[in-house]
């Protein structure tokens, strides 16, 4: 039903619940049509009957947007928006057009064509999951930076292995973790490596940095974390300090904490997987 005013999502109409929902997770059914003629009850009984490509002879309207879930089909629009920008430009105009036309032709039947910009994408149909991941990885890598993503790719290079060693060293030195059997009823959080090439002011390679990060997105409030807070100063405060120092003729100095977050002590019980490339085999069999 068009693009939401408040968020990035699409506005969708769910005829079963008769509610409008906003979601980014949209699948466009380009070739199917919605049977508006059938009653609410029928739809439940028949579990959503889809017409075929031929248009219905009765005066039902075609509609082709449906919420994700039952028939994994067509393409995932969210993935596309992560991709290249230029394609997106066209996409937007197209979508606006579509919004207008959907309002005009709500009552009459309407034919949906496949938007021209979609021609540049390979749809998810017929692809295996792995291939999809490859495409997604390719797009992300292409747009954001040249830094590697996969451990298997990185481990071949001496420079990245050194970076990972150094990260593991600082974690161990810091006594961040200890190996143990996972107590029954506890969950673990995955970890992954993030690789980044740091440049200096002259855009030359400064160092290769590997950071081990926990997949915090899988954490649940109340189970493995309670409160969150980020110590960020307000810009007003920073300027206030600068103005005051200027007024009094004081000098301002700056310090930077290396790996700051590794210093924080946890009050909750958190278990993580062993990181790729640094699985302790000896202890594994001992316990």
């Amino acid at each position: 039903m068009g693009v939401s005013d408040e968020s990035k999502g699409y506005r969708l109409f769910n005829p079963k619940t008769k509610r409008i929902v906003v979601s980014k997770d949209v699948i466009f059914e380009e070739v199917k049509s919605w049977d508006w003629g059938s009653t609410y009850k029928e739809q439940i009984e028949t579990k959503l009957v889809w017409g075929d490509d031929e248009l219905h002879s009765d005066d039902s309207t075609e509609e082709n947007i449906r919420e994700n879930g039952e028939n994994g089909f067509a393409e995932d629009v969210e993935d596309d928006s992560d991709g290249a920008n230029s394609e997106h430009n066209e996409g937007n105009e197209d979508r606006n057009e579509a919004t207008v036309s959907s309002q005009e032709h709500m009552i009459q039947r309407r034919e949906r064509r496949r938007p021209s910009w979609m021609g540049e994408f390979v749809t998810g149909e017929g692809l295996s999951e792995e291939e999809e991941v490859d495409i997604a990885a390719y797009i992300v890598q292409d747009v954001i930076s040249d830094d590697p993503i996969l451990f298997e790719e990185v481990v071949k290079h001496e420079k990245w292995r050194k970076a990972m060693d150094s990260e593991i060293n600082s974690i161990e030195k810091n006594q961040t973790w200890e190996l143990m059997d996972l107590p029954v009823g506890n969950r673990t959080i995955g970890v992954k490596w993030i690789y980044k090439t740091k440049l200096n002011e002259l855009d030359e390679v400064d160092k290769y940095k590997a950071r081990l990060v926990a997949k915090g997105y899988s954490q649940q409030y109340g189970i493995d974390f309670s409160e969150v807070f980020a110590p960020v100063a307000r810009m007003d405060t920073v300027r206030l300090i600068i103005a005051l120092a200027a007024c009094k003729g004081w000098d301002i100095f700056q310090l930077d904490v290396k790996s700051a977050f590794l210093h924080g002590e946890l009050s909750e019980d958190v278990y993580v997987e062993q990181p790729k490339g640094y699985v302790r085999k000896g202890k594994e069999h001992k316990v």
Partner: protein
Amino acid sequence: MSERGRSIKFKLHKALYGLRQAPRAWFSRIEEHFTQEGFQKCPSEQTLFIKRSVGEGILIVSIYVDDLIYTSNDIGMMLKFKKSMMHAFDMTDLGKMRFFLGIEVLQKPEGIFVCQWKYTKDVLKKFAMLESKPVQSPIVPSSKLNKDVEGTAVDDTYFKQIVGSLLYLTATRPDIMLSVSLISRYMSKPTEMHLQAAKRILRYLKGTTSYGIFYKKGGEENLLAFTDSDYAGDEDDCKSTSGYVFLLSSGVVSWMSKKQPIVTLSSTEVEFVVVAASACQAMWMKRVLRNLTHTQDSSTIIMCDNSSTIKLSKNPVMHGRSKHIRVRFHFLRDLVQDGEIELVHCGTKEQVADLMTKALKLETFQTLRKNMGMVDFSEIN
């Protein structure tokens, strides 16, 4: 390999990057360290720590996640602090503050200059405006924007990227605050008209890339506030725009330009809304300053160009006004009675807050910009 057989995992004693509670755990750690070292946390600003010595010595530390800045009137205290920090954590000593949160800082004997020269260059490059023709003001004088329903739609992602970059630039560029806040109102359905307005701001930046704020040594120690509003300035819903500017040490330290949340019925009402908002900010800044220095207990002067608002704040007559205005009225009157703030009338020519609410004529724009302490980098060298 580890997934096979028994589940041998790592139990964390300390945080890892990516954990939800990592920033909080880090902050608790450093907060504990500061408490041990005899610092007081500023009650109005969690990230500000102050330590006083027996004499007049004072050490001020501000934390921004893993970056921290500190200043003091006592070199001995600073050296001791640095040593203890280096001992407790793995630190990089960056020396004098030069580059903090993307803001360039230049400390000179005459004062301190802050700007975002590099970031401005990057923004111009990103939006292919490096070769554009510079203009002298960010908005066409007395021009108005509206929803422009008939206009040709433009790519909203691109438009939002421009607005986002410009918003970050307002950290040292109060002169573009109004124009950026105006175009940001049309992010959902931008048209050619809005994109043109955005490009004009970029062209203005092209001509003023090395502008920044200069805080003079020995400048005014007391806060001075200006407030102004643009009555029913929005063409689409007749809401007004509030603006305020706070000056300290002859430079601007805090500013705002914002569409008011409510529709108001008169220019006095609209002024109540903006003065109340400025008074809140004034109270917060006073509290922080009181922590930073011992002084600052005189009432903060708020310059305002609506004389009936000033009169009403002194002489409590309020006729049958609706509740949302009454609440603000009482709030202000109490602050004035307690001597926390004082409302003073000021002429339109000195009204710096006009920069936050109106598309001014070039000459006025330049004068007021100077009054905020904004100068070109070359002027201080």
